[in-house]
């Protein structure tokens, strides 16, 4: 448990016995104890931390895939450095720990919300879409605040960020700005009035938090999602992997029942008894933390994805 009010409250040192200590020292110790005990409450009041907010932030962090992308195989959690091979070059995820200079420790909650919602750094630089703000734009502001609070409660790492190794024409952030101008519109999650609450809950998990479309939807020449082929699979997914069709067509997951989807989302086990591997494996590590209600909602949403006939092949 990286942070809890409980863990801070546990730090109340008491050395020696009352009888052993002279009165001034006893007074001093009493005052120190009182100060130490008051610190968590003061910190919580100052930063707006509360256990519900932190728990929600932890949930968002795990389910939204932040840990996998921002943690190198040999590295500290969220300290960045994971390589993402793409047709446009290699991106290295940045340090998003609470470190003030190496990470995002100096960011406000609004800075993080702006990064997720608009794909812009606090300095005004546009991010490359390797950071999936195209989906995270739908994350609600209160969820972004919870995520911010939780990340800042975690240990900081001073691991320096690594420069991306991109094709020459992408070397400048102007390329990211141009890409966003062409292909990105910030948006808010709008529940569909035609669907029930369960479906809309699943839609939020899939579209915003889980950002499933980023891998399962094919991309055009410029790396933008082909929205008319949403979730139809991608022969050139992350690391060059084949990403399956997950629409409700038989070439997707149309023949999976709810129980099979449950097993997959919890353990990564496929209906034929094999297990998912490669890039989806760490995704399962994250979404296995979904609450049963959220998992059910996600299944409802996925099972109703419009069918697209697409047998993905390299």
């Amino acid at each position, binding site marked *: 448990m990286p942070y809890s009010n409980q863990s801070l409250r546990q730090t109340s040192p008491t050395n020696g016995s009352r009888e052993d200590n002279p009165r001034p020292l006893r007074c001093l110790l009493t005052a120190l104890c009182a100060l130490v005990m008051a610190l968590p409450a003061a910190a919580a009041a100052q930063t707006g931390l509360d256990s519900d907010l932190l728990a929600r932030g932890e949930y968002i962090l795990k389910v939204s895939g932040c840990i996998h992308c921002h943690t190198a195989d040999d590295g500290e959690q969220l300290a960045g450095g994971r390589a993402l091979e793409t047709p446009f070059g290699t991106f290295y995820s940045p340090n998003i720990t609470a470190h003030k200079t190496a990470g995002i420790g100096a960011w406000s909650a609004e800075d993080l919300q702006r990064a997720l919602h608009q794909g812009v750094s606090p300095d005004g630089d546009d991010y490359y879409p390797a950071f999936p703000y195209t989906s995270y734009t739908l994350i609600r502001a209160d969820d972004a605040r919870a995520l911010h609070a939780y990340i800042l409660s975690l240990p900081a790492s001073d691991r320096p960020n690594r420069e991306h190794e991109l094709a020459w024409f992408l070397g400048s952030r102007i390329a990211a700005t141009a890409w966003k101008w062409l292909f990105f519109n910030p948006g808010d999650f709008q529940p569909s009035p035609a669907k029930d609450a369960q479906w809309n809950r699943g839609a939020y998990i899939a579209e915003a938090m889980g950002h499933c479309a980023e891998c399962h939807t094919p991309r055009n020449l410029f790396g933008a999602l082909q929205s008319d082929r949403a979730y139809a699979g991608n022969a050139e997914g992350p690391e060059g992997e084949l990403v*399956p069709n997950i629409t409700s067509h*038989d070439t997707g997951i149309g023949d999976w029942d709810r129980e099979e989807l449950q097993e997959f989302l919890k*353990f*990564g*086990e496929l209906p034929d008894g094999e297990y*998912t*591997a*490669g890039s989806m494996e760490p995704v399962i590590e994250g979404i296995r933390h979904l609450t049963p209600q959220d998992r059910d909602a996600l299944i409802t949403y996925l099972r109703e994805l419009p069918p697209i006939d697409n*047998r993905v*092949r390299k």
Partner: protein
Amino acid sequence: MKNLSKICLLLIGVSLLTPGLAAKDPNLKLLKARQGEMQLRAYNVGPLFGMAKGKMEYDAALASKLANNLKTQLSLDIGGTWKQGTDVDAYPGKTTALGKIWSTYPEISNYGKKYANAVNELADAAGNGLDALKPKISAVGKTCKGCHDEFREQK
């Protein structure tokens, strides 16, 4: 009644003849043999993934045994079962092996080498605790997926 007897005789004849015809295609035997070897891999790999994913409790002795089964399988010489022409185009519904296995050969052997390395490392680590097992079985799974993505017909 007489017609019914004839129909029954005909059906019995067809049912006896069909497996006989199938058995006469030697390529089908090859297909079944290599699929059997793959199923044996799956038999060993499945519980290892199950332990790594928390679906079943980690058992050091079982993990070590299954991983070593996989290692033993590496020593089988079954190259003969991978005969050119035994692909999904020639045997739809019987196999998912793509013709590019043979048209791009020896590309597939690179996956075989990666798989063998991953299995050897798995066999060394599987009995040394769950934390030792997890990355090694994950590496094996990645080599399986790499090959399946490239050379296996998707459903």
